[in-house]
């Protein structure tokens, strides 16, 4: 039988792995609620992970590293915004370009800052994200295993609350959603569609950058080429899974994090279940859920449609 300590271990791992996904999925929620598809989350997360690890290594300050990661993700998102909002680009194509650029830039800069290596030098263990509940509970007790998490985990949950509040309880949120549902109507009411979309897309990049840093300065202590590989896409799936809502995305991320927790748990126990097959589970679940539960038109109505007030002055 599985013991209480083991359950606590799985829960703890779940939280740790869910946090980076949550930031990034919230990024997706922001962008797509304003009507801009962001398939470039992966690239934004990657550059955030790289920037976080690099700034963390050189300054030794995890908070500065975390913020810098957000800025780098936001800057990449700004490019996506320029293309998809101002120039009416195909948003999926632009997002794919972001993934090339985010990954390429990260490795390019890593080689420049770290003598030709694509692996950044590890930050000091003391310079990793702090763990607010470290030493408060008895070591390896149930509470310790579950709650002794990096600060990034707790901030992720606060962000869910914050984004939910902004989207559903403020005028700004109402406007963002109206721009995502019916930009023309919003425009008629005097809402600046372009400005709101810029804001949302840049926020989405900042959040994805945080997500990358939550990986590179908390879960591990450096950046390497395979660190993010695919988590941005999982976050994208989590957003859709969670029906474009912050709280839904949170639950989906917890599910994916949980799958990760089980993989690590079973890997440690030597139970004869293939890690490879276990790793497939989140993706299979997503497909099944999409088949059964999410109907055809659940996303914001104008998601993916460029909105041009008038043709460019040519």
């Amino acid at each position, binding site marked *: 039988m599985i013991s209480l300590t083991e359950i606590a271990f799985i829960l703890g791992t779940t939280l740790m792995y869910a946090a980076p996904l949550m930031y990034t999925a919230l990024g997706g929620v922001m962008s797509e609620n304003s009507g801009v598809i962001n398939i470039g989350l992966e690239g934004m997360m990657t550059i955030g992970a790289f920037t976080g690890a690099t700034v963390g290594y050189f300054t030794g300050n995890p908070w500065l590293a975390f913020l810098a990661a957000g800025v780098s993700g936001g800057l990449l998102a700004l490019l996506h915004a320029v293309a998809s909002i101002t120039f009416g680009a195909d948003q999926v194509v632009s997002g794919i370009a*972001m*993934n*090339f650029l985010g990954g*390429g830039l990260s490795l390019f800069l890593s080689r420049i800052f770290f003598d030709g290596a694509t692996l950044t030098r590890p930050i000091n263990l003391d310079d990793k994200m702090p763990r607010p509940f470290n030493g408060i509970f008895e070591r390896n007790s149930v509470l310790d295993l579950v709650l002794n998490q990096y600060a990034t985990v707790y901030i992720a949950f606060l962000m869910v609350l914050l984004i939910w509040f902004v989207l559903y309880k403020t005028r700004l949120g109402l406007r963002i959603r109206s721009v995502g549902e019916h930009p023309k109507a919003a425009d008629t009411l005097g809402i600046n569609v372009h400005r709101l979309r810029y804001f949302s897309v840049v926020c989405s990049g900042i959040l994805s950058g945080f997500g990358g840093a939550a990986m590179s300065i908390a879960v591990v202590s450096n950046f390497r080429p395979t660190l993010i590989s695919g988590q941005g896409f999982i976050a994208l*799936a989590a957003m859709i899974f969670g029906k474009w809502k912050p709280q839904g995305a949170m639950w989906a991320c917890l599910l994916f994090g949980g799958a990760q927790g089980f993989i690590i748990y079973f890997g440690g126990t030597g139970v004869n279940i293939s890690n490879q*097959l276990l790793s497939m589970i989140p993706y299979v679940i997503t*497909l099944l859920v999409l088949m059964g539960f999410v*109907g055809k038109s659940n996303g914001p109505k104008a998601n993916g449609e460029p909105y041009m007030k008038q043709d460019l002055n040519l």
Partner: protein
Amino acid sequence: MKNKQIFLTIFSVLLGLVVGGIALAVSGYNPLEAYGIMIEGVFSRPRYISWTFIRSVPIILTGLSVAFAFRTGLFNIGAEGQYIVGAATAALAGYFLELPAGIHAVVVIIIAMVAAGVWGGIAGLLKSKFGVHEVISTIMLNWIALYLNNYIVFWDKFRRPQSEASQKILETAQISILGGLRTSGNEFIRGIFSTPVNLGIAFAVLAALFVWYTLNKTTLGYELRAVGYNRDASEYGGINVNRSIVISMVISGALAGLGGATQVLGVTKEISVLAAMEGNGFDGIAVALLGNTTPLGSVLAGLLFGGLKYGGPKIQPALGAPSEVIDIMIGSIVFFTAMPNFIKVIAHKLKKKRGEAE
């Protein structure tokens, strides 16, 4: 109209080169020198040219796969996974089947294409039956394919002991050409054929012809394209839209699978554990977009990116410049092709300036 498209494409490539050059210059390397090394690294020796072709084949095929789907109104992000399934199936069939030389290779390729076609077809089915957007389902299928590949590699009967790779395929399944010349007494000939030259490029050209013919000369192609243009109108016109979506994704998947199969049968002869995506499918998206989703365009764009991917890394040992500048260039090229409006604005401004000067 057509000329305009070609202009936009060339301009995107040029802008991509400029961005790459700026990245190099800012980090203290001479971009002209770097581009010189890349060009030399592709053209200066016959061996290099044949390597460029070898490198281009998989991304030409994934490019054709994405382009085909595009033409029928589908965005196949799943060429990556379909490529992996094609490669893994080819490795399995190349090792476990025992057939005479020649026939073996043909059978392996057919099986691999069918498997990858089914993989693509799943996404088609999910879209037509359940309304699951293919962009999302194919991303999921990519990851399932990756872990499936690793599962297959680690299978006791197939894994090469003490390694992260599978057994090599049997010689009967290989598609190398002029294998005998590689051990020729003549040093020059041996040099040229020291690369794993194989039939892949011929398959890529045949696949391009197939795509062109199917889309432009057959009723099926007409129907598939009609669905791509306007789903509702096609339905009204009596075309079975759901069936078209599935067929389209099956063909698209089979093309990407052919890419994986030729790579295994011609170059790697094995499959190995994948820690992350190799990017053949994503490169294919770039190739298809740059090639304006036409077969000829995909072949040319595939050769360009193949050259960049083969010649690019040579700046690393020569100058110490990061070879990842290639990804930045490809990303920029895709970025600029995504927004023709941007290029139109620039071109317009340039024209205006010239007008004022006159």
